[in-house]
């Protein structure tokens, strides 16, 4: 999985590409933890190029959500599609994480 980070004024935008599974999610978690430690309280995850998410990927997102919650931060997800979108629907992630069509619309909500 490729992780691309952009630190913008309102939020850090993280674009993910490929597969978030048991192999790639620990790295993802580490990178996000580093971003939060830097003081980025709002994260927008751009899932437009993410093909797959496994349960360990979901767990990483949960972990980050919890971390941000402790700091009164926000996690927003944009660009859900395909299988990832289905997983979000089934798992009920939709009900706990705000989902947006695009990064722009997510940004406008911060």
């Amino acid at each position, binding site marked *: 999985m490729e992780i691309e980070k952009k630190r913008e004024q309102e939020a850090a935008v993280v674009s993910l590409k490929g597969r978030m599974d048991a192999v790639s999610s620990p790295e993802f978690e580490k990178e996000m933890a580093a971003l939060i430690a830097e003081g980025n309280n709002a994260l927008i995850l751009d899932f437009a190029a993410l093909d797959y998410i496994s*349960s*360990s990927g*979901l*767990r990483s997102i*949960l972990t980050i959500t919890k971390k941000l919650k402790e700091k009164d931060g926000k996690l927003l997800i944009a660009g859900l599609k395909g299988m990832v979108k289905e997983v979000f629907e*089934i*798992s*009920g992630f939709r*009900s706990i994480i705000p989902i947006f069509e695009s990064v722009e619309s997510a940004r406008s909500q911060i």
Partner: protein
Amino acid sequence: MIKNLGLAFKLIIFILTSTTIIFVAAFVYNYHYSKKTLLKNIEENARNLTLSTVYKIETVLRSVEEVPLNQASIIEKYPYQRQDLLKLVQSAVANNPEIFGSTFAFEPYAFNPTLLYFAPYYYRNNEKIILTFLGSDSYRYFYLDWFQIPKEIDSPVWSEPFYDEGAGNIIMSTYSVPFYKKIDGKNKFRGVVTADISLMWLKDIVSSVKIYKTGYAFLISQNGVMVTHPEKQLIMKESIFSIAEARKDSTLRQVGRKMITGEPGFVPLQDFVSGKKSWMYYAPLPSNGWSLGVIFPEEELFADVSRLSKQVLLIGVVGFTFLCIVIAFFSRTITKPLGSLARSTSEIVKGNLDIELPEVRANDEIGKLTRSFKEMKVALKEYIANLAATTAAKERIESELKIARTIQMSFLPKHFPPFPDKVEFEIFASLEPAKEIGGDLYDFFLLDEEHLFFVVGDVSDKGIPAALFMAVTKTLLKGTAEPQLKPSDILKRVNLELCQDNESNMFVTVFCGILNFKSGELLYSNAGHNPPLLVRAGQEPEWLELPKGFFLGVFEESQYDTKKVELRSGDLLLVYTDGVTEALNENKELYSEQRLLETTRTYPDNSPEELVNNVVNAVKSFSKEVSQADDITVLALRFKGIKEDSPYPGFFQYA
């Protein structure tokens, strides 16, 4: 082949080959350069020698020429009588020891109209000077070359050498100067003044030229006739051309031509007497157009160079031998420790790490190599010891994991049919564990005489923590499930329990249901699990509509709902984990819900056991060689129902 030879031998070969090439090149260059330089010096010397000899001869010839030239001018200027002429000739011979004889030879009747011949000739004979008169019927001197040629060409000329048979059988040459008388303002030829010289003195001068051991000089006349030569039988009998002809030596012929045209030169040739390779310098005698050749035998010429070359070669050979010995010795000192190192290391390769490596004293590359090998040996030994320990530890952990796995699997109900006396439904489940310990679970049990509780779940992680979490979940579910509770209530309670102190953020997806197998009413709830397939008897499989519900173990406040569906006789429910739909093949394609749907559609009438096995096999043959990443769990439940009008309870029908 070379690569099989020892290092010492290779060293010797390579060093000696290159040294030989260098030495030979230097030697050849030196040899040729010395030869060239020597040749240049020799040419210089030869020229000097030849020209000084030529000069010596020339001096004599010039002094001889003076005499008849003077006499000719005297009788052209002054009137003379017979006596004057005799006196003139006599004094010329007497005053010039080089002159053998001299005469005034007149044209027929020119001196005296009555005399056909008039040529008073004075010559030396045993210290005396004798007078004779030339000319007779047998000696018509005015037809001879020495008379004819100067007459014809109107200038003095040296004759070809000739044997003078009348005067002591000596080789002579005559210088003839024509003289004239002015008649009516015109010069009219009257005769020639001659001076004969013996060529004996020439021989002395020429043979005094000695070069090296066998070098010599020779003189040829204008026609190429041998005038002097160390080989006496050649003199006057052979010419350079006749010799060239006899020897079929075209070089000699060409040289001869150059000689008689008066050119000087320095050429290599074969000595026409000894046949040895030689060099020759030749130069003309300007007075008479004769040519002096000086022969240098090449082997003597280059004797010094050859001697020097032999010495250099000898030094080379001695040097080579010495170099050989040095290299052999030196390479042995290198290769010997290398050899023993190679033997020791081949022992190491066999696994004998206790072998002692050879002692090293030197601090050169071989010393370093040996020390490195020593270090490597020690490191290898340590590494192997560590590896053995690690492997043992790993094996212990693996066997413990295996035991944990076995315990985990033993949690799951595995006896089928589980309720042989319950004819209203059939249930079958299978969990194919991934290589790594996983967190799938399934369970089913009777809540009372008409309610069956069943559940399929998937813990978000893998390994021992997931297995423990799975065990906890399963235990909580079993402990919580009661006939009075709806599935959503059960999930809510289990969630609360799991959320307590769940620092690891581990979670579990769960689908659970309670089937009233008397009525066919199915209540179910979901916590983030994949939607099961509902296969209505005789119809296409469809995805079961799920209530919303988040994973268990994350948020205490999560809400769950219960949905209801009426099963009719023959309806089947297929519950599975994402190990099925997310199994990968070698092209990184997912098995996917679509394929699951297809597989299920293909076997509509199978018993739950067969359907479960078919699905598992289909997934496995889809993945082929790709190792299973996640547990694969499939549970199938078929409601048979009881035919209302059946006379025998327990006799049921399929739709």
